[in-house]
């Protein structure tokens, strides 16, 4: 029996939506399933969330036709300043500065608010005749047959395809349905996320302060606004989150001093528990996991969405080449190519962010001295620093074509 779709994508967040567009560009027919209703996706209000997009991620958004729509609302990141700090003391004199002038590709990355990405993806999907977007429905169950996978939806409807892709986040139901186990741990830290408006311009500089309880990132948004990702021990984060807006700002201000002048909240506040969570396998017969469903890492180096977009670029390339060879795209030997391509990068990112967080979320004087010297050393060696800049921009490794901004 012929399948109704080539591919079913379960989860229509940023990853699932970008994946559906990338697949449709290779002429795959896609069903995109998401429990959220359309109006939630298209809401215009700013919820305080923003993403630091690496240059490679921007290339992918460009390749799938989204970048043009978000470019006017994107803030280029011109410089990243990493410093060691203790609340109230300000930054250590030994700091690491990563400047885009050392990178021929232009800015190191871009800050884009969640709402602009959401809206642009939603509009492009609505305009794409190869994507059937099914909002407000859940996947009830999944079953694998010899020539495809069948998915029962909460609407009572059943759909079939050659491949099912789980983009349904860290609590992935698709992965669970395939009995894929997960491993990981909590960091005992929670990120407080908000956006602030400030008196003085940020000049496109992103700051990362390493505090004893966890890192604080100040990421530039368009205008005199910045996105804040502020990690604290979970107990402390819960206490701060419960405070009034004025008390919250009063807690935040001494943590990064007054270089931006007076600050105030804009948008909503949110908290995210921090942990490492990796699926033990990212592929099974006729099934693939992508993004947070495959791997959740510490957001310390801003790799969450960027890492998901790398999955999308690699998977789209593997499936496109398989389709052009006439291979069955749902077969495990095809899907294994994606798993192998991504596994090294995912495990090194997980290990690096884990180590980074353990070394920097620490008030031990020896470790503080060591990391200050380390940051100073990296700063003093141009070759090493340029390597780090390229790494942060996502321009290293065996890059899938979409991340290079090239068609497959």
């Amino acid at each position, binding site marked *: *029996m*012929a*399948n109704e779709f080539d591919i079913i994508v379960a989860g229509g967040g940023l990853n699932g939506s970008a994946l559906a567009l990338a697949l449709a560009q*290779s*002429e795959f027919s896609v069903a995109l399933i998401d429990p959220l209703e359309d109006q939630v996706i298209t809401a215009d209000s700013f919820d305080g969330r923003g993403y630091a997009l690496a240059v490679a991620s921007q290339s992918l958004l460009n390749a799938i036709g989204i970048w043009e729509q978000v470019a006017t609302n994107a803030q280029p990141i011109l410089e990243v300043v990493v410093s060691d700090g203790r609340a109230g003391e300000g930054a250590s004199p030994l700091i690491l500065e990563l400047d885009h002038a050392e990178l021929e590709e232009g800015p190191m990355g871009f800050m884009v608010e969640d709402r602009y990405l959401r809206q642009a993806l939603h509009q492009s999907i609505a305009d794409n005749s190869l994507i059937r977007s099914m909002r407000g429905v859940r996947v009830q169950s999944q079953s694998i047959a*010899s*020539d*495809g996978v069948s998915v029962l939806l909460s609407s009572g409807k059943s759909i079939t395809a050659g491949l099912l892709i789980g983009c349904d986040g860290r609590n992935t139901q698709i992965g669970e349905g395939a009995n894929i186990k997960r491993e990981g741990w909590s960091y005992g830290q929670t990120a407080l996320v908000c956006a602030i408006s400030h008196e003085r311009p940020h000049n496109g500089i992103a700051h990362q302060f390493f505090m004893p309880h966890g890192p604080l990132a100040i990421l530039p948004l368009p205008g005199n606004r910045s996105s804040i990702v502020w990690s604290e021990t979970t107990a402390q984060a819960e206490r701060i989150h419960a405070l009034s807006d004025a008390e919250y700002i009063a807690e935040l201000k001494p943590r990064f001093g007054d270089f931006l002048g007076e600050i105030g909240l804009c948008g909503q506040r949110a908290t995210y528990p921090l942990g490492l969570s990796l699926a033990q396998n990212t592929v099974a017969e006729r099934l693939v996991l992508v993004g947070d469903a495959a791997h959740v890492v510490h957001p310390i180096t801003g790799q969450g969405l960027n890492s998901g977009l790398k999955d999308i670029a690699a998977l789209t390339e593997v499936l496109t080449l*398989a*389709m*052009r*060879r*006439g*291979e*069955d795209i749902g*077969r*495990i*030997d095809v899907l294994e190519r994606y798993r192998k391509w991504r596994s090294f990068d995912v495990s090194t990112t997980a290990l690096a962010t884990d180590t980074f967080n353990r070394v920097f979320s620490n008030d031990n004087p020896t470790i503080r001295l060591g990391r200050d010297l380390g940051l100073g050393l990296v700063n003093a060696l141009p070759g090493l620093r340029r390597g780090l800049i390229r790494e942060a921009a996502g321009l290293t490794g065996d890059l899938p074509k979409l991340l290079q901004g090239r068609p497959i």
Partner: protein
Amino acid sequence: MTSTVDPAEVAKFEAMAAEWWDPTGKFKPLHMMNPCRLDYITSQIAAEFGRDLTKRHAFAGLRILDIGCGGGLLSEPMARLGADVVGADAAAGNIPVAQIHADQSGLNVDYRNTTAEALVEAGEVFDVVLNMEVIEHVADPQAFMTASQQLLKPGGLLLCSTINRNPKSYMAVIVGAEYVMRWLPKGTHEWNKFITPSELIELLKTAGLDTVDSKGFVFNPVSWNWSISDRDLSVNYVTASVKPA
């Protein structure tokens, strides 16, 4: 399949189909090599017939013969690309096995227990004849090549892959693949039946075909995969030949 087929026979063929198509099973070496073979086959067909592989069903309207089709590892991809495919195998047991798998995959392939010579006699002609890893197993290579040529329409394309004959290929295929890695059953190949590229091109020429391309299929034991090489034809290699219009 009609209802007169013995269910026990069907179960046996289903098990054999599963075995043919298991990427980690008995036919693992073929599965490992298949993406590389398909890259060559699809690019040569696309170039010869002016097809765009970025489009779906790029081979629609092309009639392709897969000689020595086995379980259908090449026939199915060609059918998926939209071609009208005949899979022929002299081993009768392969036909129901390949047919069951094509049915399970929702693909339409015309599998037949026949030979190249019998197809010539029946007056069948094709745009493309795939002759992959077959010639080293036939009794009379020249007669087989001539039959393959007769099966082509004028302007048709013959793709032929086989194994070179030299000490390296002996080590790689007989000692390496059959004895050390146990990838292939011992006795799968007879080394004296292997053919060098110049011998193959001569066979093709005598049959009336112009060889337009030849490449090597090279296994890299470090990255553990196969790739196409312009220069290294020392073990596995492939040729593309055209029947003059």
